[in-house]
């Protein structure tokens, strides 16, 4: 199945001769007898391209995507419209196929994109420094926790019940060897009920909006969280920051979050990117890649990977983090998306989401058997309490081509509204939910 390799039998013979060996086997002489496989891999034979395509198309057809049903799923990833120019730019091989820009002279495109991206994230979050992205949202929370722990040398994490459960779980998993503990701050009517914070707290973690859609009152929470030197870490959705006051307004130390909403596909959960922005103080403690502006020997503007002494390939066990990739291509989608939306667009889109989401909440909570889990202002998502088991309601609706949202526990349903869900779509959801709850 040599379509991707060029070596013909004649090439092989010529190359083996140049190497000075007889057979391919000779090249593997160092592999001890005892660990040689000695048989073919137990995998099917290779297939022609058309058959691989057909197989994967048939598999894809077994999925019910947002193209196939009216979906109100969210809870961390959202079916926002991805403009076509993103595909077109991301598919350019010059962005798609290079490695990390180790040779800046021939990587100015990618490096400038990182710089533009960092600028956008910094501008959106209101925090002065951003890295060039990390894996995704929840692991960004864990990375922020590591920073807080190594910076403060303290060992308690306080995590709001409103933080996305995936973030909470990822922090738990990742911190297993840190000697830290995690405690939950409960919600009251949808909002984090933070009381005083002990001296030994490394960080307080909040979601904004939180998992149940409520907008947290950061103005009140921030001074409490930061009173004893704990870092305030806020997970937020960058797409909401056209209408929501940014973390930087509230003395937040680190803002992280999932970047999928910025022009990235759903892709069943990945790849996307996580963003990581912080106060200036933490610039040399940040994980991941960072691009910086500089000049070349002729004085021309250029960009390089910078502050690399934080990184594992130089600092090894003393690195700020073990991460060595950014999600460069996904971050590129993000910065294209933000340019496409633009300064006015991100506000217009945010306002549309706010209006439709409130309309949806009003419409749905007016139904019998539905009540709001909380009455806080929301941006794009809200939580309902249903009179019937949420899982059953979802199944009932799914049979009718409507995916009403993400069930949480027994009777809670998270409903997400994007600009692709019109009033008519929301009304249709109300109709199906009415039937489901009858």
């Amino acid at each position, binding site marked *: 199945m*040599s379509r991707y390799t060029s070596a013909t039998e004649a090439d092989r013979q010529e190359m083996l001769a*140049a190497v000075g060996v007889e057979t*391919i086997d000779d*090249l*593997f002489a*160092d592999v001890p007898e005892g660990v040689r496989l000695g048989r*073919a891999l137990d995998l099917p034979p290779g297939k022609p391209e058309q058959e*691989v*395509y057909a197989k994967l198309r048939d598999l894809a057809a*077994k*999925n019910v*995507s947002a193209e196939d049903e009216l979906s109100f799923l969210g809870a961390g*990833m959202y079916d926002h419209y991805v403009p076509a120019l993103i595909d*077109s730019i991301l598919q350019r091989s*010059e*962005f*798609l196929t*290079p490695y990390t820009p180790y*040779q*800046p*002279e021939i990587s100015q495109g990618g490096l400038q994109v990182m*710089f533009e991206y960092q600028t956008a994230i910094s*501008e959106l979050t209101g925090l002065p420094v951003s890295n060039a992205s990390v894996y*995704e949202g*929840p*692991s960004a929370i864990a990375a922020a926790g590591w920073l807080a722990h190594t910076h403060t040398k303290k060992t308690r994490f306080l995590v709001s019940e409103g933080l996305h459960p*995936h973030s909470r779980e990822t922090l738990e*998993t990742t911190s297993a*060897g840190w000697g830290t503990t995690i405690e939950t701050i409960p919600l009251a009517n949808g909002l984090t009920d933070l009381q005083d914070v002990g001296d030994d707290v490394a960080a307080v973690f909040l979601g904004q909006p939180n998992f149940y859609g409520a907008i947290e009152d950061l103005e009140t929470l921030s001074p409490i969280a930061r009173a004893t030197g704990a870092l305030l870490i806020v997970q937020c959705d960058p797409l909401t920051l056209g*209408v929501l*006051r*940014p973390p930087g307004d509230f003395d937040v130390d680190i803002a992280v979050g999932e970047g999928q909403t910025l022009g990235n596909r759903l*892709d069943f959960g*990945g790849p996307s*990117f996580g963003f990581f922005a912080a106060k200036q103080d933490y610039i040399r403690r940040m994980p991941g*890649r*960072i691009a910086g*502006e500089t000049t*070349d020997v*002729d004085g021309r*503007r*250029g960009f*390089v990977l*910078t502050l690399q002494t934080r990184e594992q*390939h130089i600092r090894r*066990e*003393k690195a700020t983090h*073990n991460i*060595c*990739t*950014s999600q*460069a291509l996904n971050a590129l989608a993000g910065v294209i998306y933000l*340019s496409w*939306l*633009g300064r006015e*667009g*991100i*506000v217009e889109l945010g306002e549309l989401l706010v209006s439709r989401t409130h*309309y949806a909440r009003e419409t749905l909570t007016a139904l019998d058997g539905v009540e709001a889990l909380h009455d806080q202002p929301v941006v794009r998502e809200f939580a309902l309490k249903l009179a019937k088991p949420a899982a059953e309601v979802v199944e009932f609706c799914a049979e009718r081509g409507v995916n009403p949202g993400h069930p949480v526990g027994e009777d809670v349903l998270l409903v997400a509204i994007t600009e692709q869900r019109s009033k008519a779509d*929301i009304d249709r959801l109300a109709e199906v939910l009415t039937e489901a709850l009858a």
Partner: protein
Amino acid sequence: DRAKTIYEKSKPGRRAFVAPELDVPSHALPEKFRRAEPPKLPEIAEPEIVRHYNRLSKRNFDLDTGFYPLGSCTMKHNPKLHERVAALPGNSRLHPLQNPKRAQGALQLMHELQGALSEVAGLPHVSLQPSAGSHGELAGVLLTRAYFEDRGDQRTKILTPDTSHGTNPATVTMGGYEVVKVGTDEHGGVDVEDLRAKADEQVACLMLTNPNTLGVFDRNIEEIAKIVHGVGATLYYDGANLNAVMGRTRPGDMGFDIVHFNLHKTFTQPHGGGGPGAGPIAVSDRMEPYLTKPQVVKRDDGTFDLDYDRPKSIGRLRGFQGNYGVFVRSYAYILSLGSDGLQEASETAVLNANYLLAKLRALGVTEYLPPAYDRLCMHEFVLSGAPMKKELDLRTLDLAKRLLDHGFHPPTVYFPLLVDEALLIEPTETETMETLDLFAEALANILREGAEDPEIARNAPYGTPVRRLDEAGAAKRPVIRQPL
């Protein structure tokens, strides 16, 4: 014009976005939550966004344009079919929280990919969750921790060879262990005596790459495994170099307990300028109970599901189920190549590396840049630029920069650390003999030119969009965002 940022091309009132109509009553957020000033995003119409990024793209070198022999990065061809299948709406618009009943195709794909990776690794259990190699490493260290904690066995140290990728020790630290370095023997393998001396009951794990970053297959691997298992520790396989051995030998057969795959290397996810990738892991039976959750499983009725009922699991390392878009591409690759094709890929990768090394010898390049270890290599090999530095007063960096003017991406430089002025070259199996010949000749030409006038290479590159950049200045006074 060329280095203007998108912000510098912005002009108030321009736009690409047209908002959908407000079809519901307008609702405003309470003042206290509302952002006062819109973020200063660019204001620019679609044609100029396209031109901006199109022009930027032309300031990047890429794999589809030329040879990219970055050692340890496996810059093999990215088949175009993979982009087509990843973009199918059934994949690209599938929500990660879709009920598994309605995501059977995706789960089946993941399950089949798990099976294939398991066979390649020779280890029975796979988790697809980790997002990259470094994430896979972390998973491995956390599994090791969970394993020992479950047995009530407190261990504090993890061994890493001094040839290892920097990620290994960094991961060890993040996993809460102490790093203990193991030396390298005269053949480029693990110094077995040093290992024996350091392997004690405090050691939780040895992290190894095989072939290692010197491009050398460790002939003592069986002995190494015995020593590590002898103290009850786990043996971790860094899969960065798996492209050398598919179908020839398997980490599981060598005695490894945990393996991570770099799907973006061996299984050809496009690197995207530094991501995304994916770093699945495969493990032995004894590690299975601790694997991340959810796991993709096949139920008795033949359906696929996400299994959260894993009481000993380390938990989750990220949101949702992993980088599914990467899985689609890597699975397409495995389907296309099949059993023979994967083996042929590894064999050709090794053949290409040895051929290139032979060619460099034939052209006299190795006089100035001798191989760090004078033996057959696997899929990559390390040269030392020390003689070149001494005799021509040219550093490896100069050589690399001069290669840019020849239209090649340079190999990895200054890694591995234990080789002076190192140059780590990995041609991969998808390159032609002719390309390898041209690359070898370019190196020979640069050395010839350097013998006459080393200044040329020392000031290289010349034909690139920018010339050598002030990296020190950038780090000293970091400008990492544009003031708006």
